[in-house]
């Protein structure tokens, strides 16, 4: 299948599958009320983080929003650390201080997430500035929503990144909604990918449910950043299946229709890609089943690790407010 080698295909599939299965587990367990933190699920958008992160090296930096399980997993974050964080445990990736909205994996340079819309956009330009000052060939990538493009900080950061020709890739995940509001009730024009043009930053639009399209387009952007050609903006058009925050469907709320959801479920990024790979013989059904079974066990392990882990102690409340001289 084109020039993409099958190892890449398998890796893309694995990343999407892992994200999906982890989140399906969260959907199953969340009603137990033991994961006591607001949790914004990513189901339906997996092709974006998988496609983009496939082009990154471990040393590259990634930032995301509160809806970040996908980017965290695609960058290689540990799912034990993720589940333990959701359960508020000491073994969590943020030691129980962050919850779902604040996950991090320093080992793989997944640099953190913000619960403020647009909050991480300039911070990613900051890591890019540091890389360029230190002459390291590291790329910074930031994931954010369509809503985040309404914050002034988005435009301010684009200008700064262009001015300094920073090695940063801006990935807008346009799922058409911010909480319960459609993009066109908040934005005068449907043209996010064009909003960098005025700074001479190339902007692209891509089907965010097609993992190969995302992969190929972001490959160019990442290479450009790595080779000193400056930033890019990519608008990935996709869809969030579940409610803004929490594990349930929400078409009953009335802000979007079941028909619209069904249309997007039919375009599921994961099953579509599975179908393509099976058809082209890149993977066999039995191998796919094995892959899923292995993931299922890994996820069960992570959940039981999380449930068994201790809570932080009272003393931990006061720990880490400041960095102490080491």
């Amino acid at each position, binding site marked *: 299948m084109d020039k993409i080698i099958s190892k890449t295909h398998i890796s893309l599939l694995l990343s999407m599958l892992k994200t999906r299965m982890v989140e399906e587990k969260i959907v199953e367990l969340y009603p137990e009320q033991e994961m006591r933190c607001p949790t914004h699920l990513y189901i339906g958008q997996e092709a974006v983080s998988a496609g983009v992160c496939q082009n990154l090296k471990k040393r590259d930096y990634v930032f995301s929003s509160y809806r970040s399980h996908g980017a965290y997993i695609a960058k290689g974050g540990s799912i034990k650390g993720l589940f333990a964080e959701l359960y508020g445990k000491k073994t969590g990736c943020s030691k129980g201080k962050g*919850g779902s909205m604040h996950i991090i994996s320093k080992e793989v340079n997944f640099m953190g997430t913000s619960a403020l819309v647009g909050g991480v956009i300039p911070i990613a330009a900051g890591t890019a500035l540091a890389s360029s000052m230190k002459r390291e060939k590291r790329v910074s990538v930031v994931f954010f929503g369509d809503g985040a493009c309404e914050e002034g900080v988005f435009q301010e950061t684009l200008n700064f990144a262009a001015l300094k020709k920073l090695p940063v890739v801006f990935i807008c995940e346009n799922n058409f909604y911010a909480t319960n509001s459609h993009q066109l009730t908040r934005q005068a024009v449907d043209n996010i990918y064009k909003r960098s043009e005025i700074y001479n930053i190339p902007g692209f639009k891509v089907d965010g449910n097609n993992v190969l399209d995302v992969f190929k387009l972001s490959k160019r952007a990442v290479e450009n950043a790595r080779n000193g050609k400056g930033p890019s903006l990519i608008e990935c058009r996709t869809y969030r299946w579940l409610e803004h925050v929490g594990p349930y469907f929400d078409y009953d709320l009335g802000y979007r229709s079941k028909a619209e959801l069904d249309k997007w479920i039919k375009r599921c990024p994961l099953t579509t890609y599975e179908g393509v790979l099976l058809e082209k013989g890149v993977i066999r059904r039995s191998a796919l089943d094995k892959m899923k079974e292995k993931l299922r066990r890994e996820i069960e392990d992570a959940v039981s690790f999380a449930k068994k882990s201790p809570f932080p102690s009272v003393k931990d409340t006061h720990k880490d407010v400041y960095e102490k001289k080491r």
Partner: protein
Amino acid sequence: MKRKDSSIRQLTYCQAINEALVQLLERHRNIFIMGLGVDDCGRIFGSTRGLSERFGKKRAFEIPISENAVTGVAIGASLCGMRPIMTHQRMDFMFYAFDQIINHAAKWHYMFGGQFPVPITIRTIIGRGWGQGAQHSQSLHSLFAHIPGLKVVMPSTPYDVKGLLISSVLDDNPVIFIEHRRLYDEKGAVPEEFYSIPLGKARIVKKGRDITIVANSQMVREAEKGAKELLKSGIDAEVIDLRTIRPLDEDLIFNSVKKTGRLIVADTGWRNCGIASEVSSSVAESVFEYLKAPILRITFADTPTPTSAALEKTFYPDSEDIVYVAKRLILGKKIKRKKKERAILDEQFKGPF
């Protein structure tokens, strides 16, 4: 306006906000309301329900996620005689608008010699617990109260939230109106009339002789619970609800302390440079000679908000802390303390917010 008439209707805090908004929009053509969630299916936890249907989408509308710019827009509209109400579902989100609030709204009147009032009201919501974490739970009312030119209101009951919201919107100055998510479902008597409660007037919630407990917002509820508990040990506490933290009703506090000689201040925020410190120092400056004991403050732990339920227990103060501190002040230092066992307000609240 007389309070406490048992024949009057019970409304929730949220319904009382909604009724105030309806009555304001009905009476004044120049009032409008805008914010994230004002006209979506959630309607800011229900508080803006029915507004766009009744008053049209020109007077009750959604905004882009552009807090700072839209706050500036509100200021501009107010310079032309409009009375905008802005809303934020969590206080944390309005920090993007610090610039417009602090540098512009708070200054426009003074800086130009009093020519332009800025009658805007910014409704914002604080919370407690359920893993909201560091960026979804902050209560920086004290920071706003630090700024000359702003007024800061923190209602704790359905009756107050209606009367104070009406006063805030009709006030000719920028008002930061801080609601508490945990109070939204609480019921209380609320008259149907259009009434206002003056800004800067505190309220005695419960009279008492032995100790004064000054509290704000949801901590008033903890103080009331604490006072009840203290009665069992023969301690008769007076509970004061600040209602407005800027301006501060110093007279009411001073008179109470003159009577009881002891003061605890319980705040929904942090200690350092906070409103609890402000109340304490005012008392120390003005009625020091009446004090029989040191003043004590009850506030958040001095850390950002942790997410884990295990840590929230120690982070948020509650009625147990108030009881403990009051007993220590009155009965001497050697009080044994039980370890707090339950997580924050586990009982009814099913997350997420």
